[in-house]
């Protein structure tokens, strides 16, 4: 019975932890503007992040080293540095977006302007990272993030025409009045929101911190293979809610309040409260992960002592980097840039940097020195290589497309 509880806890945490401000904004925005025609991107993104998270987790469990730790060893100092820089900048941008997201959620709940909440959120993130134990941290925001299931409930309560939604999903083409270039641009955005680099960075290091062994491998795989797809379903529910409520009226999603509006419309005040708790938890959890991922990346590249669980005095450089990352991200958001805009840029640039962040994982997962005979199976390699080709194409196309569509206008 206890094992069942532990197991359920694991994948529930994965569901709640899967969604962040990027997914909320991207799926809602896309649903409002393109209906369900981009629904196909979600499973593509989910399979990709499942694949690379599994590899990342396997590396951590079998070798006892975090994936990023091994990137420099396998790819060399220069390639490792390029990888680090790309990952760090993207993670920084993502962290800024998440802090902004938490602040926006608090603004919706309290009517206090989000910029006033930003410093509070930053301090809270730092305090949690400084003191709260890992498992406690993950389980709390993971379970609270499940409140986002309110989107699925709301979609059902809105009583949509399921046939129309399904046919929209099965006809991948921009609706009348929308250009293909914008459609592809937002396909990349949804893809980047699902495959954020900090997820795999964090996943691997947290596995090492929690002392995963080969025995924990099965459990972590189950969490990934059940939790992430369910998270993907929630993402589709968010898209559906926006499609049902906003697309017929031609309204574009530009604020967090619009993202949560379908739930308020369908479930009233209670629904709004629940979904705001969910948004807060999911974005706060993502902020924790992104901040830690920034610290992990730098410390692991240079070979410094790292770890959240250990006494901070035993890993001062890691904590110094963590603090600096948090301060930089806070400063970025305090420049009063629109958090939604920061979010959009962070997910699109994430998509552009994917080859740099994912190729090393593929390299490391094939090394017998670290994994013994638990290296990638042929099937995994074929699938991963296909995804590598995909992310390469996406990466090449992203910036030109961003320029051409003026960031999705």
């Amino acid at each position: 019975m206890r094992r069942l509880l532990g197991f359920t806890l694991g994948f529930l945490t994965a569901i709640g932890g899967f969604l962040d401000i990027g997914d909320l904004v991207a799926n809602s925005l896309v649903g409002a503007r393109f209906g369900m025609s981009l629904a196909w991107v979600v499973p593509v993104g989910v399979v990709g992040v499942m694949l690379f998270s599994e590899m990342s987790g396997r590396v951590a469990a079998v070798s006892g080293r975090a994936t990023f730790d091994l990137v420099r060893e396998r790819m060399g100092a220069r390639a490792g540095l390029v990888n680090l820089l790309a990952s760090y900048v993207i993670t920084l941008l993502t962290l800024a977006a998440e802090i902004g997201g938490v602040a926006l959620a608090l603004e919706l709940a309290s009517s206090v302007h989000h910029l006033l909440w930003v410093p509070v959120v930053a301090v809270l993130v730092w305090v949690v990272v400084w003191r709260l134990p890992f498992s406690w941290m993950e389980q709390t925001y993971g379970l609270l993030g499940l409140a986002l299931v309110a989107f699925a409930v709301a979609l059902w309560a809105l009583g949509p025409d399921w046939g129309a939604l399904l046919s929209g999903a099965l006809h991948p083409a921009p609706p009348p009045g929308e250009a293909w270039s914008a459609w592809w641009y937002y396909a990349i955005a949804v893809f980047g929101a699902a495959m954020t680099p900090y997820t795999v960075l964090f996943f691997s290091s947290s596995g090492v911190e929690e002392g995963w062994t080969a025995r924990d491998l099965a459990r972590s795989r189950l969490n990934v293979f059940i939790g992430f797809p369910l998270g993907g379903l929630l993402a589709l529910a968010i898209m559906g809610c926006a499609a049902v409520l906003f697309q017929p009226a031609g309204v574009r999603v530009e604020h967090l309040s619009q993202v949560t509006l379908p739930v308020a419309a369908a479930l009233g005040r209670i629904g709004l409260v629940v979904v705001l708790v969910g948004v807060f938890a999911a974005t706060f959890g993502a902020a924790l992960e992104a901040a830690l991922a920034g610290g992990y990346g730098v410390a692991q590249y240079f070979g410094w002592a790292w770890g959240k669980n250990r006494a901070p005095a035993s890993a001062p450089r890691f904590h110094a980097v963590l603090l600096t990352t948090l301060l930089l991200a806070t400063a970025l958001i305090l420049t009063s840039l629109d958090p939604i805009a920061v979010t959009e840029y962070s997910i699109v640039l994430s998509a552009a940097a994917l080859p740099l962040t994912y190729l090393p994982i593929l390299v490391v997962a094939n090394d017998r020195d670290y994994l013994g005979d638990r290296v990638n199976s042929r099937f995994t390699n074929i699938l991963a290589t296909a995804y590598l080709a995909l992310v390469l194409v996406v990466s090449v196309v992203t910036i030109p497309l961003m320029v051409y569509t003026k960031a999705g206008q």
Partner: protein
Amino acid sequence: MTVPDDDARPEPMRLGFTALDRQIYDADGRSVGKVDDIELSWDGTAARPVVTALLTGGAALGPRIAGRPGRLWAALLRRLRPDAPEPVRLPIGGVAAFRPAVRLSSPAPAEVWAVEDWLRDHVIGRVPGAGRADDNGR
């Protein structure tokens, strides 16, 4: 924890592949850094150079990242400022094993910890709770 001593075999190995950029742990298990470069020396009359030390630290990594221009730049700096920081040198005699990570047979030299100690004393260590590891509460 015993480390497999694969290097006992006299098979050739590629330094860049097996030793360079590896994590270094000292005898106490503390993370010392990465192998940022490897020093080779010609000993007297021997035709073939041998590995004499592992180099770690920013001064060793910098030239490798920047490539040839970086090395020329570093050489120039050394000539201008003779007391510029030298990379930390770990003699090969103190290396117990190379795979899966480099393990030293003794505690690391004090200069490795310079930045860590400074940060601990002046920044991180000043914040309450710095000395305590997370209690798991399980």
